């Protein structure tokens, strides 16, 4: 029994001695890898429009983008603004289609008749 245990220890010692170990230098070696990210597009600045001197006498459109089940919010916003700023004309309008659809005719109308826009809302 003792001989068997001794033999096992010798074998284990020999195996351990010959098992290659990673050198500290290998773990510290620096490697070069490629960047996984794609190419970002350039951003073209859009200058912001000049603001109004005041809201008095102006026409401001409130545009409902018609996100599902949010009508109460835009109607209430319209009501509150009318109450607080009675010398401003507040026009509540629906945008054509759902919230993802453009409405160039409405934008044309706003440019012709309006002075400012409040756009809302999702979720």
């Amino acid at each position, binding site marked *: 029994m003792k001989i068997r245990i001794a033999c096992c220890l010798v074998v284990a010692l020999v195996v351990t001695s010959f098992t290659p170990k990673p050198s500290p230098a290998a773990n510290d070696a620096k490697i070069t890898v*490629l960047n996984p990210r794609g190419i970002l597009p350039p951003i073209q*600045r859009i200058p912001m429009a000049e603001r109004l001197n005041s809201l008095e006498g102006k026409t401001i459109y409130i545009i409902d983008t018609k996100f599902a089940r949010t009508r*109460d919010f835009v109607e209430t*916003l319209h009501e509150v603004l009318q109450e607080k700023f009675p010398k401003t004309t507040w026009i509540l309008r629906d945008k054509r289609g759902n919230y993802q659809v453009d409405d160039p005719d409405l934008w044309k109308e706003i440019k012709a008749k309006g002075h400012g826009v409040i756009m809302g809302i999702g979720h």
Partner: protein
Amino acid sequence: MPTVPVITQSFDELVTSIAYKKGIPGMRMVFTPHPVTDRPPDICRRYIEGKDPVSGKPMIDVIVSGLTQPVAAEDKQTGLIARPPRPRLLEPMTAEKLDQYFLDNDYTDGFPIVLPTEEKVAAMLKATSHRPDEMVGKMRPSDPHEAWEYTVEMVAVNAVMAGAKPEYFPAILAMASTGVTSLFSSTSSFARMAVFNGPIAKEIKMNSGIGAMGPFSHANSTIGRAWTLISKNLGGSGKPGETYLGSQGTPLNFSNICFPEAESELPKGWSPLHVQKGFKPSDSVVSLFSGWSLNNVAWFSSMPIHDVIRGWLEHFFSTSVSQATFILDPIVAKDIAAAGFATKEAYADYLVKNTGTPAWLYWQTRQNELKKAKEGVEPFAGYLKLGDNGVIPVSRFGRGRGKNRSGIEIIVTGGSTNAYWFGGDFSHVTSSSIDKWR
């Protein structure tokens, strides 16, 4: 035109980021508590007369100042906004530090990746005849977001990271070339599916047998994973709150239900999916699908399986979707064919013609028809007599695009160990040639 958008608080990071990327970094925004959906007028009034939760100022004041406060000189500028440079190589580091760097910079899906060394990427690139600098496509998280571009080499980098073998690369390039992100940014948590057809499946040892849709094939798993890494790193998706908004997310995004159709197990007369989409049987093709979820069903009854599926579609598939995809085990497909459905299309047509709409769902979305029904106008008055538990004989399906007029897709895969089938709300987005990228 002076404009202020009103946005709910949860999307602060999203809209700030999009305003910057659209070239209006100083955009004036007004925030309200989230959500406003289904909030009655009294709560809406409280929100509007209260404070903007982001700025902390009264919401009405933020609206007024947004329209009237003079614009800063910086916000009147034109020209380009500089983006951070994108070096081809990252700064050399130890492997351990690079692993952490990739995690810290959100370049991964959270699992360990294979570091994309020049040697490994070069080996990947040998699997295609296309030049490393050739542009493959553009991808974006969803429509409002900017699109990023990418080359063959950039796709190879992500394929290496996913653990893919070079022989999978043409299939991965075909997916990338579609520009379809696997991490679509919507507040609902979209999932994606990639179905492979043609010789490619056998060539790269994809699994269409037992466990086809599970984690039992290196090719299925790593190709699907590569799509997610590409969507993050090349398509700009996957930053929660900014470029990913799925409220709960979905575990299906990890490797995107990715499997080949079991073409050799198709019943006689049933065409493989890629042939249905206009390709030749000898073409290698990947078809991409979009949806949310799948049910895995087997119901053993005296009812024939084609009617079990019909019943499931009618009664359990009751949300407002109008498209469906069935993934049938070969046993199920053969039973359906034996019941007289000579083609996939014939069975899809049967489903369209024989699935009505549960009454409660029908009336919820048809207020005008409900009014007519109450006035005695047929056929609506007759529908109303069926009661809340009735089935209105109007299918919600049959509004597919292109050649698939049914809106119902049928795919066959699996190892024939049991008569199971998946049904779900997935719809076909596009199919792309893999051979083009060899």
